[in-house]
């Protein structure tokens, strides 16, 4: 299979996942239990991406010690809670990571 065809197939599958729920084929009123479950989608999807990106190393191990991303992410959480600012959180997070790296931690 050529790379271009593979790209198109992946694109079609991705678009299908995004578009199918908007087709109107679903019932007009979703059950209350389902709507309650949908409330948790952002938290339940984005949190694993965060923990995986921070904790899992390139060789598929989990790093608790000697992992500079961990304190940087912890500080970023604190800053996000205090400031509610994406920009400040990013700046402090990267400053912490690069600072720890620079000073040889």
């Amino acid at each position: 299979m050529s790379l271009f065809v593979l790209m198109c197939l992946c694109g079609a599958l991705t678009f299908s996942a995004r578009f199918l729920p908007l087709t109107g084929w679903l019932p007009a009123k979703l059950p209350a239990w389902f709507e309650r479950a949908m409330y948790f989608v952002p938290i339940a999807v984005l949190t694993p991406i965060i923990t995986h990106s921070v904790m899992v190393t390139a060789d598929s191990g989990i790093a608790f010690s000697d992992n500079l991303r961990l304190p940087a992410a912890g500080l970023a959480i604190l800053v996000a809670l205090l400031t509610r600012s994406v920009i400040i959180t990013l700046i402090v997070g990267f400053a912490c990571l690069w600072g720890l790296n620079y000073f040889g931690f």
Partner: protein
Amino acid sequence: MTSALDEFKRGLLDELPLQIGIIPFGLVYGILGVESGMSILETCLLSVILFGGASQIVFAQLVASATPAGVILASVSTINLRHLLYGLSLASYLKNLPLRWRVLLAYLLTDEAYAMSIIRFRSGQPSDYLHYHLLGTGLLLFIVWQISTITGAFLGTAVPASLQLGFAVPLSFIAVLAPVIKRRAEIFAALSAGITALILHDMVWQLWLICAAIIGIAVGWAVSYLDKDNQMEAVK
């Protein structure tokens, strides 16, 4: 009641701060795409065709390791299954729009656009033009993503790996999520999903993400049910 232009501008402004995270993420993908053996054109084309950061990076990594096409397809599909959940949670707001709108918004529906627009949709402030908010968030992200990708692809290996630009991805999500996780059910949903992702981190085809999401949703749902917390439905 806000106008269409107000909503569009609000979407742009809400999404703007996230671009600080998107730019390095796009650069990382662009660099990785070329390093994986794809041409600059193919690297940039994938950004337009797929338009999904995490899945594009996985695609490039799997292409670099000469993974069979079937496995690449399955991996990308699995990673992007979460968009089905995003679409489902937005369906009640968007499903009555004309087809051309739904096609456009479905294409633009990414993690970051969803993260900002769902907050607006659930804000309780009524508007007939909520879809313009998602158009604003999605369109800005699309433009910045394409520019970042092209820049990364041309920069190639000139950006030192020691900068760890990929760290922008979790930082962006932390900035969006941390302030909104307040109730017991939300805290339990986040903890259970995050821990599950670590336990299952080496599952094939990145299945850890879908498994962790399902566990997080189930735990959040159960705790909110036990707490008789009806806020989750009231915010709709």
